[in-house]
């Protein structure tokens, strides 16, 4: 996990956790307070409803008594029910409706003794229906009133109903009337929609009424079945709407989410900013450190930062500086060691060259002393040995001369040098040669002869690595951007035998060669020439796959694209 991610998570935790605890606490406290408030209101409401039911029952009984008094004095009604004259039927059918409206009731029926409906106020055209059990059941009800589901043409109407009776023309008639419970007098008691009342029958075990309402109190009531006369124990369920509470919870949740989102966003942005502030210099420093190499010790670690990162950068810069000095000393030691080795090698080589000559000279001296006439013949015989040894010494001298040529620094067109070099190389028919040169004609400051020797050596090594087998050799140039500026890159690659890691480690050593006829100075000289030209050399190789040698030289300032 990166430093930046850890920082982000830490910030999120610090920002969100207190907010979560705060929101949960506020929500819990609100719910508790409101629930308690609703409970107190429900309790007081139940008390009011109970007393109102009693009062409403009294009112219904008084109203029905008044209705029967009026009916008793109505001669036309008397004639309609007693004489059953057809022309008075409409009057009779309409009577309950008129009386119901005048009395302020919601339900009124006039029934014969046998239960036949003569007139109905709430369902005018139900006349003729027989319900013999209604009147006796209502008469049995406690306090003379009970709940009744009165039929209408559409939906049943729940009423608090009472009953009265009167005698007309020697017959007894019942008057059943009541007021609507739901939406009626109870509706007036629970205005505003916080509470609602519904009839809850015995078989109805549902704890809720409408959606979002919970039953908080139940008032036992008698419910008369008008058809059978059975009195059922039902309840008036007072339900509290949970909308406001739910809405409050929902709003708290909503604001909590908004606050959490905002805190998370701010946390993330802050963490990202801080992370970037802290980790970016480290990343940059890591990038610079990654570039440091024995051949690349010019990385600039200088900084103006005064913090820990700045201190670390300064330390790394000093370390690189010390490393650079060490490398110089190392190279110097290496050079001295090489000179020693070279002296020994020269001694050895010269001796090797001189021994045949000395032997020939001694032989000639012996012949001159013993048989002077045979001297020309012997000389002719040994002349080849002398010339061979002299040629060997000349070659040695030429090779050693190459080790100490002075550097001539002048603008040098890399592409031109490479073209001229590869032109003289005999690749042979088995070799597939590819030359890819950068169109921008890269320039470097250096000695074109030295560069030619470098390329000559590398291409020659590549040709030798193919060892007569079919394969490919490619040479390419390009301009690459490095932290130190633009650089000319030269790639010499082959698909030859490649090198092992051990061979690679010794590849730049003097006199080390994998070739039977090599002097072992080729790559050593190349490396030295590259360093003299302020360049770097890197080798990528794999046995039986091939080798790629990558050279990099500083570009001549402002020279990219410039032609000589």
């Amino acid at each position, binding site marked *: 996990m990166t430093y930046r991610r850890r920082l982000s998570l830490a910030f999120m935790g610090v920002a969100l956790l207190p907010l979560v605890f705060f929101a949960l606490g506020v929500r819990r406290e609100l719910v508790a307070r409101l629930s308690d408030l609703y409970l107190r209101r429900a309790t007081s409401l139940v008390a009011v409803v109970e007393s109102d039911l009693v009062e409403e029952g009294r009112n219904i009984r008084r109203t029905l008594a008044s209705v029967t008094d009026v009916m008793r004095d109505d001669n036309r009604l008397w004639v309609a029910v007693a004489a059953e004259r057809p022309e008075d*039927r409409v009057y009779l*059918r*309409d009577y309950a409706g008129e009386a119901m409206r005048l009395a302020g009731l919601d339900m009124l029926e006039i029934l014969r003794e046998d239960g*036949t409906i003569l007139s109905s106020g709430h369902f005018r*055209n*139900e006349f003729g229906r027989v319900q013999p059990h209604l009147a006796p059941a209502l008469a049995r009800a406690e306090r003379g009133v009970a709940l009744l589901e009165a039929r209408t043409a559409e939906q049943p109407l729940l009423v608090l109903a009472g009953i009265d009776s009167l005698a007309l023309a020697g017959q007894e008639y019942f008057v059943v009337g009541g007021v609507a419970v739901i939406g009626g007098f109870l509706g007036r008691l629970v205005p505003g929609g916080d509470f609602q009342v519904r009839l809850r029958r015995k078989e109805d075990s549902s704890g809720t009424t409408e959606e979002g309402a919970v039953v908080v109190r139940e008032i036992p009531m008698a419910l008369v079945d008008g058809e059978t006369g059975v009195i059922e124990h039902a309840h008036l369920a007072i339900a509290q709407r949970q909308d406001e509470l739910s809405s409050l919870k929902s709003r708290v949740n909503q604001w909590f989410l908004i606050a959490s989102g905002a805190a998370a966003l701010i946390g993330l942005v802050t963490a990202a900013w801080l992370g970037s502030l802290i980790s970016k210099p480290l990343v940059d420093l890591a990038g610079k450190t990654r570039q440091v190499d024995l051949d690349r010790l010019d990385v600039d670690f200088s900084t103006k930062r005064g913090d820990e990162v700045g201190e670390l950068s300064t330390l790394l810069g000093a370390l690189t500086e010390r490393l650079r000095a060490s490398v110089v000393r190392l190279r110097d030691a290496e050079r001295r060691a090489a000179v020693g080795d070279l002296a020994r090698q020269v001694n050895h080589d010269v001796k090797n060259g001189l021994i045949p000559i000395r032997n020939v000279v001694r032989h000639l001296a012996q012949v001159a002393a013993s048989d002077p006439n045979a001297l020309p013949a012997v000389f002719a015989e040994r002349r080849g040995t002398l010339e061979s040894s002299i040629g060997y010494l000349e070659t040695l001298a030429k090779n050693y001369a190459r080790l100490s040529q002075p550097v001539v620094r002048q603008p040098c067109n890399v592409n031109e040098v490479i073209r001229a070099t590869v032109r003289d190389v005999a690749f042979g028919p088995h070799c597939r040669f590819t030359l890819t040169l950068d169109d921008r004609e890269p320039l470097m400051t250096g000695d074109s002869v030295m560069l030619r020797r470098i390329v000559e050596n590398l291409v020659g090594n590549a040709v030798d690595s193919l060892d007569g087998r079919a394969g490919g050799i490619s040479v390419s140039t390009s301009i690459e951007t490095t932290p130190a500026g633009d650089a000319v890159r030269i790639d010499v690659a082959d698909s030859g035998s490649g090198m092992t890691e051990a061979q690679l480690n010794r590849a730049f050593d003097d006199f080390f060669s994998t070739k039977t006829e090599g002097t072992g100075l080729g790559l050593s000289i190349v490396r030295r020439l590259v360093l003299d030209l302020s360049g770097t050399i890197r080798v990528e190789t794999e046995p039986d796959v091939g080798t790629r040698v990558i050279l990099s030289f500083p570009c001549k300032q402002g020279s990219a694209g410039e032609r000589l």
Partner: protein
Amino acid sequence: MAKKIPWFCACSLVLASGVALACSGSAPAGQAVPQTIAPVGDGACEVVGTAGDSAGEVRVLFDRRVDPRRAPIPANDAERVTFLLLYPGLLAMNCEGRVVADLARSWEEQAGGRAWTFRLDEGRHFSDGVPLTAWSVVEAWRLRATMDSASDVWKAIDLSSTRATGPHTLRVESANGVRLDSSFFTLPQLRVARRESNSWPVGAGPYAIDTLPGVRTTIRMSPMSAVGPPIVVQVLAGRDPRELLELGASAMVTRDPVALSFAAARGGFEIVPLRWNRAYVLLNRIPGGHGSEDDSVQTDDLAREVVRGEARIVTGPQWWDDLDACGEAPAAAATSSPTGGAPPPPTLAYDRDDDVARALAERLVALARSRGPGLVEPGRLVAWAARGFGTGGEAPRTAALSAGVLARELTAGSHAAYVIPLPLRAVSPCLERGVLLRRAPWLASDPLAASMVPLVETRLSLIMRLDAIRAQPTWDGSVRLFP
């Protein structure tokens, strides 16, 4: 009597049927020959009342609004009276049910009723002064046919061949060789009205509209001639009709028993019963809801005790009795079917603004619930209720719907039954049956389940202030006012 409705239709538009066909015949050119459709013959055609002071205005009360967008085709009693004064047709039906001249001076039948030539009265003008010509008649018809292309009326006339052969001569050709009867030209759809954009249509009747367009509570009409006072049609709009009568209203067309008894008790008013014009029927789409021949008709109590105001049981042959005579069902009706095959809810739907329909629906529901020990009345209606209503365990109930919703749900067959009013008299029974089938297509598509039971018929009465107005009952149960 319940009438099982088989596949039938009105689209053939063979308009001459029954008595009409027997009495119709070719009229000699240049001579108006009245033709009997359904003579009333009860001697109630005389003009009643006397003209009042022409300086004042005649204020007539109705309980429904007049909608100019429907002109000249009336949809309620107020529009029936108003449009009769504003928009005459070529021919008209007199109070006895005979065809008489109106805008046409004479007419001639040709090709066995497949073509008719009308000569218009040359002195007639539209209310804006534009002369009435045969061309304006054709234009008015073509425009209306475009707006009401579903009407069978426009399928009976070949409007592309119908043309003005002279300024006041019009040749009408029928479509598809249908034989047209002269009574066909008394249909409200063929009344002549020039529709102007965003205004009342311009008619050529004895009165011209004075009121801006829109559905208003009062509409003022002025006589085209200098004789007679303006007539103001006023809608009750929730006001007590007794109050308006007391405040000087000249007349009221109503069946409200309270208003009628007030007028009778108040004095100074004459009450003229109009012709029976509405039949309330029970449309039932419950399988098994057909009555048997043994069932006795027990609808007397509906007329006596259930419906407030004047009502009586439906008597005599009616236009819906002979539905088979109209041939195959129209495509639109035949393709409609009750919803999905599922039994409809046990609801009886009616127009909530129609008191008669409400009373009948409530009574039928009460009877349907009175099965078993509570069954109080034998008879076919009860039998219908017991067999076909509320059999699914759900209590039958009424459904009071607005007119628009009722029309939509009647077409869809969303309820078990419906109580709706139908015109008692029809110029063309087949046309009327076509209209009914479009309103309730399941009557034709599901004939085994569908049935139609006539319940009661009703009529309006005209309350007239003495010496204020003259009026004549019309053949279709409305009234024609005279200045």
